[in-house]
């Protein structure tokens, strides 16, 4: 992989994603952990831009950073009295660490050329080769309309879309009922 502007951007965004993620699981101060979560989510949005999915990148910023992370920050501020814990991690953290390492190494062996069983050449493929094959000319301008059509045509994803809407409504009502101040 030679160093182009694109790979440089990839390195920066993946460093943001992974560094933020690392800080989320290790930071003692929960408020800081939530801010690092935002950094990690922002890095992911950058990766989406690199993958030519601008719609998902914007939705990532809007929904994840603008709504979910803000909600988490809000909950942290509401429960701030118990922020100063003596220990951040529970007693089983060595086991968790071993599990994580085993999982990561096995994923690496399956997914990357580092392992033996690289399944096919396509894992090493780059944008340009793929674009040559499938003749997707201007991906960034076609995807938004394509997503809209996929959500609203019968051959597309109308039923899943409606079910997700129902799920969101149910979650909304459920959250309000659970978090209500008084039962009376």
């Amino acid at each position, binding site marked *: 992989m030679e160093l182009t502007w694109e790979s440089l951007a990839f390195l920066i965004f993946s460093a943001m994603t992974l560094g933020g993620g690392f800080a989320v*699981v290790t930071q003692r101060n929960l408020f800081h952990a939530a801010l690092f979560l935002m950094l990690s989510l922002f890095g992911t949005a950058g990766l989406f831009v690199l993958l030519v999915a601008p719609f998902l990148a914007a939705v990532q910023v809007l929904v994840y950073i603008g709504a979910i992370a803000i909600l988490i920050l809000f909950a942290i501020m509401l429960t701030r009295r118990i922020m100063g814990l003596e220990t*951040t991690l529970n007693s089983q953290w060595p086991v968790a660490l071993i599990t994580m390492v085993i999982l990561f190494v096995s994923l690496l062996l399956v997914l990357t050329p580092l392992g033996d069983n690289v399944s096919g050449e396509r894992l090493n493929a780059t944008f340009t080769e793929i674009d040559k094959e499938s003749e997707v000319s201007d991906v960034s301008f076609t995807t938004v309309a394509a997503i809209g059509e996929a959500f609203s045509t019968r051959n597309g994803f109308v039923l899943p879309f409606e079910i997700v809407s129902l799920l969101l409504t149910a979650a909304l009502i459920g959250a309000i009922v659970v978090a209500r101040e008084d039962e009376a």
Partner: protein
Amino acid sequence: MVPLWMFLMVSAGLFSLGVFGVLSRRNAIAILMSVELMLNAANINLVAFWRYLNPDNIAGQVFAAFVFAVAAGEAAVGLALILAIYRNRQTVIVEDVNLMKW
């Protein structure tokens, strides 16, 4: 150019971090944040596979959008539960919520 497996590696690393967080953090909100990390790792995978292997089929992006919706619902309900527990028992430490434990 960035090959596909590098995106997969970032996603694998993020997922592993999330697993570690879920298994080892004591604070319920921190566990919720780790779950968000894992969902994000899944999203990176979905979009990367869509872009590299099948850019004509929009299903990859559509599924990622579904993950957003599910994550939003999960965060709302999860935080509501945490707030309810905090109101009743003055704690968000998962080990202290042991009423149903045998």
